[in-house]
């Protein structure tokens, strides 16, 4: 088997006093595209956020590119797309400004050189947003926001992409752009771990599916086939973003 890019062994994590992950094992090998599936509350978003260090693991081991997560420093190899409905903050920002922050992992002391700016432009072209580079993100649709967030992850030219529900709240046209972009990345050998609510338009790309249930791995193998209502083309789930913190006031 080829080198493992992500390795989780018996990882547990709690949110408050509630155990959310109850000892999960998950390995993603180089070049693989792995989908993390499961119902709301099954722990799939927490699993991803444990891998990147946003949620501390209470037990178990996490390795990135063979290095324990605590000692891992080579973040330019990782591109991350968090679960968001918007790319906007409290102050206006252009598409380029947002995507440029994805390049910081490769920029020394936060200074963006010519090559960095070219990489930002390329990332915008990959998601078909180059013509909106100077627009405010506030003027974009939900799908375009998601394309900006993916361009931000691609700006560092990562070897591993971690995405949390990249298709949530995205219109069909943007879904196709995203599926094509991801297909191109996979063709170039990028490893992908993504949380999905359903396989949808990404189905042909996915090598393996890991299904979580109540914080445990329930299935690890070929992706399950969609049946019934879920199999219809254009079927779309509407569900709340239960992991997105409400950011208001002092305590955001």
């Amino acid at each position, binding site marked *: 088997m080829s080198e493992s890019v992500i390795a989780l062994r018996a990882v547990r994590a709690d949110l*408050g006093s509630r155990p959310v992950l109850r000892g999960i094992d998950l390995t993603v090998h180089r070049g693989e595209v792995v989908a993390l599936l499961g119902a709301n509350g099954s722990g799939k978003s927490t699993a991803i*956020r444990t891998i*990147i*260090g*946003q949620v501390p693991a209470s037990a178990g081991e996490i390795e990135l590119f063979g290095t324990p997560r605590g000692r891992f*420093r080579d*973040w*330019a190899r*990782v*591109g*991350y797309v*968090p679960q*968001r409905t918007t*790319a906007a*903050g*409290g*102050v*206006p*920002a*252009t598409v380029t*400004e*947002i995507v*440029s*922050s*994805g390049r*910081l*992992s490769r*920029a020394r002391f*936060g200074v*963006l050189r010519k090559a960095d700016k070219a990489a930002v432009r390329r990332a915008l072209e990959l998601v078909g947003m180059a013509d909106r580079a*100077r*627009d*405010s993100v*506030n*003027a974009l649709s939900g799908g375009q926001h998601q394309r900006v967030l993916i361009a*931000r992850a691609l700006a*560092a030219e990562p070897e591993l992409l*971690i995405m949390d529900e990249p298709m949530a709240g995205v219109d*069909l046209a943007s879904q196709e752009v995203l599926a094509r972009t991801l297909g191109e990345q996979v063709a170039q050998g990028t490893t992908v771990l993504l949380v999905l609510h359903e396989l949808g338009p990404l189905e042909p790309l996915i090598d393996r599916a890991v299904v979580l249930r109540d914080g445990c791995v329930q299935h690890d193998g070929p992706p399950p086939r969609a049946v019934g209502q879920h199999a*219809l*083309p*254009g079927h779309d789930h509407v569900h709340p973003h239960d992991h997105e913190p409400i*950011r*208001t*006031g*002092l*305590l*955001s």
Partner: protein
Amino acid sequence: MDFLDYAFMQRALLAAVLVGITAPAVGIYLVQRRQALMGDGIGHVAMTGVGLGFLLSWSPVWMATLVSVLGAVLMELIRWYGRTRGDIALAMLFYGGMAGGVMFINLAPGGSNANLTSYLFGSLSTVSESDVTAICVLAAFVVLVTLGLRRQLFAVSQDEEFARVTGLPVRALNLLTAVTAAVTVTVAMRVVGLLLVSALMVVPVAAAQQLTRSFAATFAIAVAIGVTVTISGTVTSYYQDVPPGATIVLLTIGAFIVLTGLATPLARRRARAAAAAQPAPDPAECAIPASRQADGTVGV
């Protein structure tokens, strides 16, 4: 321009310009993080520093800097660890800070609440030589951080979770933002006062946002508004004998209202230009009845 002949007015104007630059420069990151009221909280905590300064016969400016930096770090730690009960801890910190200030100043020999007034609402005529030195040093620190680390602070304030994955020291940058905000509060204390300082951090940014599409432009315009209102507020208060802090804050709010008025036609024109640029605009009205379209999407 006869006001420039007076040494106290020269000092006051220098302090005002530095406040006009630093307050919006820090405020923009607080607004971006949706912590617009953090400056207000730090202002409350700084009162304890002023009171301690009087009690220990120390410079109130430096003492306020020390205490508000500690307070800001504590606030950041509460935000980090407190989560659910954090708001109550913050409330205790703010009002404890205010009560501490009143208590210490009354314990100081010859001290009374009257001494506090100039710190609460600003008092340009009492800006001393040593205050100006302190304000210059602190303002230089604030400018260095807010401009020198703008890309890092932008990334962390925009999306903390993502910033972590770019390898940025998120916690250190959060603490630095808090410390810089605390320093700015004490820079602004002599000019606009502790109770009004937050307005100068937030309102110029809010006013600039009415016109801008980018973070960089918002930053530049907010600082320009900040400098304009602090200078004109200071000069007005010299001629009209009105309190400088209140004058500056009211002018800032005035700038916000004027720019909002200007921005409405601008936004309309931009929307028209955007609509013209897109060949197939969305229908302006809902189609009735709602129907399933040919490509399977559901119309609304």
